[in-house]
């Protein structure tokens, strides 16, 4: 059984003439430990897919099954629990809590899961050990994103979701962040799913799901994903 299963998922917004179909009969699966890129232009429905994967949104029709659990049928409490234990989220604009230091933003996860990882170790892993007492406003975008990744990992989630994680970063910083995410797959065996419109990132992925107008145009299995540094950015 696949880790992620999208079964005939439809997501619509509004009703009547104003009805908009964001995701239109989408089916795909993702296996454990895969580095997946969902690729598409603006309005393709990729963020909606990611939101449904993350338990932040529910489909209008169809099923979203993660690790055998039907997320699309969960209530609010179950969804909170699901997000807490299964998902690590990395946002485009980091969404760190501005009143907490880097260390505390990561340590925050101790309030969510009992077996959260040690923040110092995670900061070391993302190369920010010396910045642990800095507040978000005292760090660069790349540093904030790395803290955000560390925070996502602190819960030791089954799946790490990234919504345009390099979208707000310069290319060199973006490469560092992507390397970090790729390493999560290759070395720590996390499943990483990234949503982006940057086709170059797809070269690093095990699987590329290309979307357009709410539908899947193609799913590409990349037999030889490139290490991030080898991609011509």
């Amino acid at each position, binding site marked *: 059984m696949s880790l992620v299963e999208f079964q005939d998922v439809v997501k619509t917004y509004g009703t009547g003439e104003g009805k908009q179909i964001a995701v239109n009969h989408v089916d795909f699966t993702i296996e454990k430990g895969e580095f997946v890129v969902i690729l598409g232009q603006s309005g393709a429905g990729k*963020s909606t897919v990611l*939101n449904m994967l*993350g338990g*932040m*949104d529910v489909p209008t029709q169809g099923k979203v099954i993660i690790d055998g659990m039907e997320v699309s049928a969960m209530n*609010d*409490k179950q969804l*909170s*629990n*699901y*997000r*807490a*234990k299964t*998902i690590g*989220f990395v*946002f*485009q*604009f980091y*969404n*760190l*809590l*501005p*009143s*907490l*230091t880097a260390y*505390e933003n990561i*340590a*925050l*996860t*101790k*309030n*969510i*899961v009992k077996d959260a990882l040690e923040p110092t170790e995670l900061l070391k892993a993302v190369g920010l050990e010396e910045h642990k007492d800095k*507040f*978000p*406003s*005292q760090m660069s975008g790349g540093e904030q994103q790395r803290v955000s990744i560390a*925070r996502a990992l602190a*819960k030791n989630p089954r799946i790490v979701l990234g919504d345009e994680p390099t979208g*707000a970063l310069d290319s060199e910083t973006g490469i560092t962040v992507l390397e970090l995410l790729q390493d999560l797959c290759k070395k720590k065996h996390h499943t990483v799913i990234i949503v982006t419109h940057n086709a170059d990132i797809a070269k690093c992925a095990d699987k590329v799901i290309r979307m357009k107008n709410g539908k899947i145009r193609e799913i590409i299995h990349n037999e030889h994903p490139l290490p991030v540094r080898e991609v011509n950015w």
Partner: protein
Amino acid sequence: MLIRKMLREMQTNFGQFFSVFLLSFLAVCMFTLLKASNVGAYHALNNFHQKTNLADGWLYGEGFSDEDLKKVRELSDVTDAQLRMQVTGTSVGQNNAQIEIFLEDENLLTKPYVLEGVEFNPSDTEHLWLSERFAKEWDLSVGDDFAVTYNGVSVEKKIAGLIASPEFSYMCADTDLDVDFKNIAYVYMSYKAFPVREYVEHLIAAGKITANDVLEHTKLLDAVLEQLEANGLTKDAITQEMLLKRIDGLSDEKLLAMMPYTQMILSTDKEDVLALENEISEAVNGDYAVFVDKDSIAGMKVLADELSQHEQFAYIFTMVFVLIALLVIMTAMSRMVANQRTQIGTMNALGMKNSKIMRHYLGYSFVISALGAAFGLIVGPLWWGQALTELFVSFYTIPEWKAAYDNSFFIAAAVVVLVCTCTSYLSCRRLLRVKPSEALRPAPPKSGKNCIFEKLPFWKGLGFTVQYNLRDISRARLRAFMGIFGTACGMMIMACGLACNTTLDNVYDWNFAKLQNYDYNIQFAKDITTQQADAFSKQYGGELIMADSVEVAAKDHALSGDKKTTGVVVTEGKGFYGITNVRQEEVSIPEGTVAISSKLALSLGVEVGDGVYWHIYDKNEWYRATVGVISRNPTSSGITMLRKDFEETGNKFLPAFLFTNEDVTGLERTNSLITATHSKTDRLEAFMQSMQIMYVMVGVLIVFAAILIVVVLYNSGNLSFNERIKEFATLKVLGFESKQIQKILTIQNLWLSVIGIFLGTPFAKIILQYMFDSNGDSYDYEAVISAGDYIYAAIFVLGISVLAGVFFSKRIRRLDMVEVLKGME
């Protein structure tokens, strides 16, 4: 197009805009509500005083002559003066109501204000002018006959006019415990209209005037005395018959000497009329009892004290409310503009001029706050202010008293609008300085830094919720300050409001358990003799009480500024009339000393053992007494002394009351020496009645405090929620449950509330005492706040805090993470 944008956004964000509208409205409304009534009162009073040419000074004495008047008029600082006589009689047909009769033969000053009928004419001996409120109560009109009696003499005249006098803006009959216009009136009539012959004959026949009195006060018997002395006889040889015969042979004009003018009223251009006392004293050869200004005229003083109290209320409470409202508006407007960051960036990027964008956003706050302020300017004075005025009008008489406007109302409204607009301006200016490219992106995180709480030794041991909230408070100081300050003020006012009841309960117990230790009281007629009163005392038991007005000073030969007009109570020391010290403990007056009320002692600067000087208000002789007790009485001030000591000064003990435990109900109907009887029930009812305005004020206070607390805590929670919505959405995405987030928000609101409660608590008693002290020198309520008042007020504050938390918990549950986080991007 921009106007359409504005209108649509107002519709979309109705809640936010409505709260700014509501606060602008309430701020202006609260400011104008009490002031409108006062401004109206001062306008009407000015008009009233001007139209009646109200005197500036009142000179009281045992008798003033035309010669005295001439000399006073000649003083350069005196612009005008006149003589008059005031006596207290009773009505014949209206339940023996108390009638203050003014007899004048010219009316230059303190003219009656005619509401119906013709102007007062002091030469008209066929008519009288009656107070309008009494006339209305008894359905009397111009042209009706009206009869009064004074000292056994009846006078019946036709009513020529219905009048009002500023000297009786407040009036309460001696027989009453509270205002009842059915029982008190005043009459203006010609001095010559009084049947002086009948009056003098009656006094002589009844033995109330002897030849000695006539010789002492007039020259009517000088010729008779000379004849007697020539025959080797003395004045004792003059019999009642001789006296009556002599009177019979005198003209009415000459007899008027038996009815001397007891008052001289005067006007001056000087600011302080009391500064003229030396000159006036010299002009009348020091032959006068007291010289006072209008602050000592009871009918004006009670009203002035009441208005002054309203003024204090208006300023203290409305200022607090306006301050908080402005604080809330500032934070709300600032956030509203900040939320428009990307739109401002977009308009800027499209090439719209900064000034145009600025005007557009200033328009939001200007239009909304101006609408709120304008609505407040209408509702505050015209509706709520007028309703309050109508309540006051039922107790006081000022013709044409209506709630009125003052420039300060428009200034207050302008300040509210200006603050709103300036807040938008500052927020907008800040955003316009940001480059359009940056403004189109989400705002960078607020700068975070270590907060002061991190220096706490146990900081690291604090949980996430605590640390997170402490950091948030140190980042959003204005919001936190608003929450604390608002709650502190709310707590203070709520505790004050609740404690008003406790204080009134205390006054009630104090009065009826310690001070008034009797079940019934008899009020005697003014002309009762000591012997007659003693006979009543013997028959019914109890304690005779004399009450009069006195002037008191800390030093001998004091001038007006150093003298205090107050009351004297002479008791028999039997305990029916209780005396309490400043701790409300029952005490007795040591023989040879007087008790002096604490407020009076404070203003005179005297303590136990010091000497005080006093004299009966309309008598000229001063006495020295030693202070034996500093007493405290909630409803009366002055000095209290024992009958024995009073009589030793040579003064006549003329009791006004007999306090007894015997049922004397209805005695006034069978005995002409008794004007009224009151049972304890009557007094309890009158007390509650007299507290009516106070209870209205208490109600206003409590409602006001409740609104304040709800507005502040709701806004504090709302701001906190909206400022942290992105953080809450992030926490939710990370897996936090709604309950956990709600806890974060509620805990912070509770902290701020608890701090506010602790800060507001100590001020409650200070403010309450200040409120009661502003009630005038005659009242000396001790502000009492029970633990229950504090607890109930605190429970209310915390309850609202929790309710606000529950309200926001729903919003947290419904928080659309996708929308919020997308919106942020």
